[in-house]
């Protein structure tokens, strides 16, 4: 036994005599860190790196089968899903890994921000981190394109539309992005090159720089209220701390990193196993227009902003906001490189994180069930419920038919079914009188199209008589209220008779 041990040791020494890596690696692993930093709050960066590793491995596995052409990409994904043993699982790992990576990178960034770890001397580590976030999002977007299904095809259109809004060079940018005048083979190939060569290369290089800086500058200490960062004294204070009660990174802190990474990979595996691969949706055939394109999870909030921003502000918002946000993130450590680290002394930072987190969550959840999109098949799919037809006159029932046939249901819900684009119509009669209903139907307005050209006068009469019955059977309809008030005012003295009409 000791012979084998001796032989292994000899082999190890043979390699290390030639590689010389044992010493620097051991030193890096055991470099002292503040005792307070050996915390569960400091595990997100290593988890992001671990997921990146998973993405590389699963990405290479997919590339063994995937056919990277516009013509065959979609079919090869279907083939991986159904014909390759465990192909579905590898695709699921890669897809869920992508969502987890975006999430963990954002959590890591939030933690660093809240702990003030971006302050001196770690400004550049933060700046490189901002680029890592941008590259991660770039991977998520280009990855969605490589799924090359309907969502990917129309998602490229959205990208082109944003480029097309850039003043002066918009057209050139559209052609540059699409690799030609229209979405096709060259478009697909350049996104493949970005996703597989360009962005991963940049990511690897930036991760190396990022990790090197963490090693070189040391892990940021746990912030204490009142302990200010000053350029003149910080390094000495940090060195003194480490000298006093520093602990080696391996194993004192690393066991938490490794445990958390394992838990995250397990979570990705669980999502992959239980929820399966993400897509592909329908084939990338632009002539199949029965589709409701939607971006992947990390970009749902952008999709919501497009719908909710006032149209006049949309282009400036689209083009200026990203630049302002990125510049603000890059400039943050240069502007606030000193001072208080602890969150309890940085109310603006806490407020910013809360507002951004709440806004992004709301926009994302709105994007999942978008109320602004018409439900394209509600007019033929969601029938008018019997309670709205019971005891109604033939004219009113005819009106219900017009209501369905004219696609009103696509934007207006009845009994909770139908589009949410316009207001629910269950109680519309209590809000609008007969003449207001007629005007609204014929002329539209308030973000509703005018139906004057599409409806014949009898259809309008029938539709409005149906709408007038929608008062929830509780409150009097607007018409009745008005008639009542008019008759009351006619009875009261001081009014001429023609006013009461």
């Amino acid at each position: 036994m000791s012979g084998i041990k001796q032989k292994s040791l000899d082999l190890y020494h043979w390699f290390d005599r030639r590689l010389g890596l044992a010493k620097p690696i051991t030193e890096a692993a055991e470099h002292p860190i503040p005792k307070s930093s050996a915390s569960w709050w400091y595990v997100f960066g290593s988890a992001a790196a671990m997921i990146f590793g998973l993405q590389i491995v699963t990405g290479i596995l997919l590339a063994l089968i995937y056919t990277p052409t516009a013509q065959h990409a979609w079919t090869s994904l279907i083939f991986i899903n159904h014909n390759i043993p465990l192909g579905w699982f590898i695709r699921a790992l890669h897809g869920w890994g992508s969502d987890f990576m975006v999430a963990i990178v954002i959590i890591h960034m939030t933690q660093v921000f809240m702990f003030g770890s971006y302050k001196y001397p770690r400004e550049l580590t933060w700046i490189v981190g901002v680029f890592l976030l941008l590259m991660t999002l770039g991977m998520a977007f280009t990855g969605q394109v490589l799924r090359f299904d309907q969502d990917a095809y129309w998602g490229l259109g959205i990208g082109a539309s944003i480029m097309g809004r850039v003043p002066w060079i918009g057209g050139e940018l559209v052609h540059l992005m699409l690799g030609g005048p229209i979405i096709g083979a060259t478009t697909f190939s350049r996104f493949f090159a970005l996703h597989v060569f360009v962005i991963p290369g940049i990511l690897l290089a930036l991760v190396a720089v990022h990790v090197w800086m963490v090693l070189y500058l040391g892990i940021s200490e746990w912030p204490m209220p009142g302990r200010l960062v000053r350029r003149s004294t910080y390094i000495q204070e940090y060195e003194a701390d480490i000298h006093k009660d520093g602990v080696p990174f391996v194993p004192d802190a690393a066991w938490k990193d490794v445990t958390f990474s394992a838990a995250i990979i397990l979570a990705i595996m669980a999502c992959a196993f239980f929820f399966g691969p993400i897509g592909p949706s329908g084939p990338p055939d632009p002539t199949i227009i029965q589709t409701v394109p939607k971006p992947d999870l990390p970009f749902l909030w952008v999709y919501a902003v497009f719908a909710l921003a006032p149209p006049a502000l949309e282009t400036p918002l689209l083009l200026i906001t990203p630049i302002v946000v990125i510049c603000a993130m890059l400039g943050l450590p240069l502007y606030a490189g000193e001072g208080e680290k602890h969150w309890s002394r940085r109310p603006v930072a806490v407020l910013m994180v809360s507002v951004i987190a709440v806004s992004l969550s709301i926009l994302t959840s709105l994007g999942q069930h978008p109320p602004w999109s018409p439900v394209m098949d509600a007019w033929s799919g969601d029938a008018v419920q019997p309670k709205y037809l019971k005891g109604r006159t033939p004219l009113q029932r005819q009106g219900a038919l017009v209501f369905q046939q004219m696609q009103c249901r696509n934007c207006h819900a009845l009994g909770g079914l139908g589009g949410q684009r316009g207001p629910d119509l269950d109680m519309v009669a209590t809000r609008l009188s007969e003449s207001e209903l007629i005007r609204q139907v014929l002329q539209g307005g308030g973000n509703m199209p005018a139906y004057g050209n599409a409806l014949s006068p009898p259809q309008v009469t029938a539709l409005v008589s149906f709408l007038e019955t929608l008062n929830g059977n509780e409150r009097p309809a607007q018409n009745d209220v008005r008639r009542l008030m008019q008759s009351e005012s006619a009875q009261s003295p001081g009014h001429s008779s023609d006013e009461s009409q």
Partner: protein
Amino acid sequence: MKKPWKDLFKNPIIENPLDQPSEHSRRKFLFKVAVLLNGAVGAVLAVPVLGYLLGPVFKRNDSYNHWVPVGNLDQFPPGETRLGRYRNPEGTPADGQTRTLPCWVRNIDNTRFQVFAINCAHMECPVHWFPQSKLFMCPCHGGVYYQDGAVAAGPPPRGLYQYKYKVAGNQLMIWAGELPTLSTQASIAKPGSKTCLG
């Protein structure tokens, strides 16, 4: 408030012993020349690389478009709007399914037509035609257009993009080949062309 960036990049100046005049050797000069030469070669190499990368940008915009058939006239009855299909004139088999593109053809009275791009002017999503309500609706952000392509509701900044068209024998032809966006629309509906008759 003190300016935090004032001494941000201030570093102690360390004197480099190699900067001593006595160290300016012939080899150092040759190294500098070699670096310059390398830079020059790199600059020359950058020309074809950038030319290759930016090829799609330098091509004249209108050179992408060609007259392509969208179908026989009898496919588009008067008074109706139907889906037309055309092949990308510059497409290749590698495009796969994306080579065939849809458009909406409105036959007004057999002599006048309107051919609309499928793409919503807002975010390029495919608009659907509803003949009953005579509206185009977009499934993405709720853009709605009237039968003549004018905006009826929602966020679109302009009406539907239109293609130039001509009738050649029994065929309806359109001038197409480029994805219409707010910047690339110019090559689609040129002033004076036979469009926008609604």
